[in-house]
């Protein structure tokens, strides 16, 4: 690991100033960053510890919404009675990720910015366009059974690893950030960038941007919502496919629905085509399956990951049936 200096400022402005000077990174829980530093993937010359900035809070927002400080520990957010009651999909998504030890340390801001677990990205002896632009992507012909089928490019097929972000995407969360020239709010839908020919650029953030909070707007029907994660062992593994769903059914008809897929794309994949297909339709297993199929028509699987199409179609049908009380 490269040697580094350390600072723990007490004000957000000071933290942003330090990182904006270059060769620096924010340190919150460090569960991903410290690991990447050990691997040589991240090599900051200065760590700016942001745990003294007062960013650890969960507050009710007007209209039954929620504001979550970026420094809130994942375990605290999942344990929050407000989250468990209003947004069970969010509590479930957080609890589906990592382990008890990691959730006690990892923060929600860091969760949004965690890096892909693509094995080529994490191995500095291998080419990777995301880590080392222009060096190539061995994953396309190599080990890619768990990589993207949606939204990828010829330059990068990495998936975003977060479970929490998939739930936040379904809930239309907004990310509040402080940048050198001021504060702004970025809807999660605009927060992540598809790789295209610049897979090294992952978000719409300024390089020195500090996430300060996440706003979750009110969504009354999210009281019936769920996160389903499919993985290669029962627990403590990244998803091979996942989905966040909330549905509002009245008299057997879908009034409204939110659906987001995880582990299928370089970003949390909001399934807007599927949502559109379902609104106003009878809630039925066929309709749920067809809606998933419509979203997945854009999938471009590679040699070893086409299984994800059937996997996520079946999981979507199951979860939506379960939430709407329809027999599969």
């Amino acid at each position: 690991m490269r040697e580094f200096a350390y600072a723990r400022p007490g004000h957000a402005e000071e933290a942003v100033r330090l990182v904006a000077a270059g060769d620096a990174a924010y340190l919150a829980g460090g569960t991903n960053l410290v690991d990447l530093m050990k691997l040589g993937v991240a090599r900051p010359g200065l760590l700016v510890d942001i745990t003294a900035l007062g960013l650890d809070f969960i507050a009710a927002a007007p209209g039954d919404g929620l504001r979550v400080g970026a420094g809130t520990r994942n375990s605290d957010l999942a344990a929050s009675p407000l989250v468990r009651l209003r947004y069970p999909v969010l509590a479930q998504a957080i609890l589906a990720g990592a382990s008890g030890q990691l959730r006690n340390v990892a923060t929600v801001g860091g969760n949004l910015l965690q890096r892909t677990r693509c094995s080529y990205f994490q191995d500095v002896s291998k080419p990777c366009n995301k880590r080392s632009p222009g060096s190539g992507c061995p994953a396309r012909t190599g080990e890619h059974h768990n990589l993207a089928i949606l939204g990828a490019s010829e330059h990068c097929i990495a998936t975003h690893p977060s479970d929490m972000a998939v739930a936040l995407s379904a809930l239309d969360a907004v990310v509040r950030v402080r940048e050198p020239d001021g504060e702004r709010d970025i809807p999660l839908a605009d927060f992540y960038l598809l790789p295209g020919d610049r897979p090294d650029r992952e978000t719409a953030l300024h390089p020195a941007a500090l996430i300060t909070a996440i706003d979750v707007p009110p969504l009354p029907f999210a009281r019936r919502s769920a996160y389903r994660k499919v993985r290669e062992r029962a627990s403590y593994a990244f998803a091979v496919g996942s989905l966040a769903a909330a549905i509002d059914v009245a008299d057997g008809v879908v009034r409204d629905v939110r659906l987001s897929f995880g582990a299928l794309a370089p970003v949390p994949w909001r399934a807007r085509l599927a949502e559109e297909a379902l609104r106003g339709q009878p809630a039925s297993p066929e309709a749920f399956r067809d809606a998933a199929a419509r979203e997945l028509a854009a999938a471009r699987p590679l040699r070893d990951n086409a299984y994800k199409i059937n996997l996520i179609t079946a999981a979507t049908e199951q979860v939506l049936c379960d939430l709407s009380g329809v027999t599969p």
Partner: protein
Amino acid sequence: MSEASTSSTVVLCVNGTRHRLRLDHRTTVLDALREHLDLTGTKKGCDHGQCGACTVLLDGRRVNGCLVLAITTDGKQITTIEGLGTSGDLHPMQQVFVAQDALQCGYCTPGQVCSAVAMLQEVQQGWPSAVTADVADEAIKLDGTEIRERMSGNLCRCGAYANIVAAITEAAR
């Protein structure tokens, strides 16, 4: 503290004792315990947060010592396996691990015990898990499925899992 320096003086409070140490910023809690304080009960397994052998309690919560930089724990309370029990005075969780034969080689055991102690406190506080049927429920029924899920951050390469679950079940009674 100078921003340009790559080491700092840190006060680590471990098992109730304060230690003033000059540490390279790269030093993790795990390495500080083992290499600087001779507290070798905490084990290094994967060193990447994947195995749980380095689990210690930080201000009462279980964490992976290998991923927490020591510099960030200045003034916080660290509890290791040495702080939970001694060979003459075992912690109740250590006693049930012995009674249920919940180990073979024992390398993962300090991490398992620290993790289990903190996990039971999480259950007492009503924290749900990924297998809790309704996350809004305030009372957790700690059955074998719940214990397996909540302990999934601690691997045991000998495969003593069945007896680890039995031990924790007994401790929870």
